[in-house]
């Protein structure tokens, strides 16, 4: 498919501001998200904050993938949600195509969000079981009042083709599909509005290896075809390496190391990154002993929660 899959006839959603010319697609600066910890039964008061994201800065260029890795609770998904303004950041700035997203009003935000989409982790929970696949994929168009019933259906059919399905699947329901196939439907939905940036939040962690490879390849193909940028969030370090131009390693709400994928993985500077890499079991029994040694060496930086 040579042309864009989404609604090509619609006018551009939001014109970039002039100052955006040489700014990367997404610029996140000093992003913080604190969740209050409340106490008290009748009169609640805040006793402390969980600093889920604590002063995080990064950029994602057009057509680029930034991989965000870290353990559970490191704040990587929260960061993704804050970028999309699905969670309101406590402070900091999120600029997309030169436009500041924090503090945008509802209507304006919806306009910008057409270009910012998300693919969720759980393909079983993220598709409405009562909607047909065609309706699921076309829903972003309905929400944004784009097209007619007929053109939306056509778009859904095109998108099904883009993710490797027969267009005839529009009338089927999610339960007829396996996990990997559902994830394709989720991806098709994310593409419906011709986004520029997609936040992929653990998109393959619920899938088996052989299916995972299909989805990762599909994401790469789509990126190439539609010039997409990805913020690729995952806990599987090997998966992230294969997808990303650059990597940001998160620990306890902060980015502890950031750089080109090959240098972060090949010669990690920070001991936390070294420890994280050493912890990954590698499909090579010959390396087992060396890796156990390596692990023991870095054990002190990984305090296991009790």
């Amino acid at each position, binding site marked *: 498919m040579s042309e864009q899959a989404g609604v090509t006839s619609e006018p551009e959603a939001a014109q970039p501001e002039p100052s955006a010319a040489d700014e990367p697609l997404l610029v996140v600066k000093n992003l913080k998200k604190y969740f209050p910890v409340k106490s008290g039964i009748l009169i609640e008061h805040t006793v402390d904050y969980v600093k889920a994201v604590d002063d995080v800065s990064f950029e994602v260029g057009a057509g680029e*993938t930034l991989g965000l890795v870290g*353990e*559970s609770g490191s704040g990587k998904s929260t960061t993704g949600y804050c970028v999309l303004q699905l969670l309101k950041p406590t402070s900091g700035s999120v600029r997309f195509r030169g436009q500041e997203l924090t503090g945008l009003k509802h209507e304006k935000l919806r306009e910008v969000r057409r270009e910012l989409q998300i693919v969720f982790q759980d393909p079983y929970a993220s598709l409405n079981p009562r909607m047909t696949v065609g309706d699921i994929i076309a829903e972003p168009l309905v929400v944004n009042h784009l097209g007619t019933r007929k053109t939306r259906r056509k778009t859904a059919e095109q998108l099904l083709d883009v993710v490797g399905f027969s267009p005839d699947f529009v009338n089927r329901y999610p339960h007829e599909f*396996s996990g*990997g196939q559902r994830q394709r439907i989720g991806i098709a939905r994310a593409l419906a509005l011709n986004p520029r940036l997609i936040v992929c939040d653990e998109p393959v962690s619920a899938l*088996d*290896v*052989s*299916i*995972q*490879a*299909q989805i*990762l*390849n599909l994401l*790469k193909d789509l990126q190439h075809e539609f010039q997409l940028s990805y913020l690729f969030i995952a*806990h*599987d*370090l*090997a*998966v992230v*390496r*294969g*997808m*990303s*131009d650059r990597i940001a390693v998160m620990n306890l709400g902060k980015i502890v190391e950031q750089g080109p*994928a*090959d240098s972060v*993985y*090949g010669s990690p500077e920070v001991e936390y990154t070294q*420890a*994280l*890499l*050493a*912890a*990954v*079991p*590698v*499909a*090579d*029994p*010959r390396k*087992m002993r060396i*890796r*156990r040694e390596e*692990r023991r060496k870095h054990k002190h930086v*990984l305090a*296991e*929660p*009790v």
Partner: protein
Amino acid sequence: MALLEVDDLRTYFPTREGEVHAVDGVSFKLEERKTLGIVGESGCGKSVTALSIMGLIQTPGRVVSGSVHFDGKELTNLKRREIEDIRGLEIGMIFQDPMTSLNPTLTIGTQITETLRRHLDLSRKEARKRAVDLLEEVHIPNASRRLDDYPHRYSGGMRQRVMIAMAISCNPKLLIADEPTTALDVTVQAGVLDLLEELRQEHAMAMIIITHNMGVVAETADDIAVMYAGQIVEQATALDLFDRPEHPYTEALLGALPKLDEPDARNARLASIPGRPPDLLSPPEACRFAPRCKYAGTDDCATVPPELREIRSGHWVRSAHPASERAREPVAVS
């Protein structure tokens, strides 16, 4: 005599649409003090194999044929009471989800001593002392104090350590770990795997590790069995399996694995396996991998079920087109 000998095990589950052949002719041997890794994707029958061994298949599912010979006893013929005596005492088990395998309404101490007193003749006090020792053995800090905590006070990794402590509490000869680290972070996983290896050596146990993760078996197992659609399709020593995988499925699975240490992986595509595993209600009649296999030709693949055969010493494969024979094929033609 091997510690555990499983022969032609078949476990079926009747459903409205027909019988699901979840485990369909699985055989293997496990020697004392050795670790067998059973690896495969969801629905390949690896967990059902473990449950069948332990007599934990819930009706209407049942072991329809085959034998499980453990330490001189045939387990498939035992009465419920008899197999309960073996489970926990001679065979320890750990399951995937440490969040749900502990009872949230009982303290950790109560749950450990329950196992101990069920199998061993211990007083309340002795059992408690033994429980503290066990928690220390699995490296839980402040063991004696934490014994009176409820499970919600423990992190996921620590809960799995408690499960392991319970599993080894009666010094079993065999420990079966079903996806013991799947729900855990890699860093926590590494600690749990190291602990299992430490305990296996100290207690001179044999171990079966069931996982979907090729890395986990590579790091823990002496021998590896790869399962696909209810059958073992390849079995070999860990070194030989990763050095020279024979079955097209094993090769494809290893090819589909993103590599941690591959430079410029960004610009490479992963080798994916087309299609998906067969429905076990009506699996392909002959080779179950044939519909997804790039080497399956017009030959017998669709008509003659391949046997598990020893392609070289200790390396078993169930395929008409194992790698080392394919390598020879062009020579035979010319």
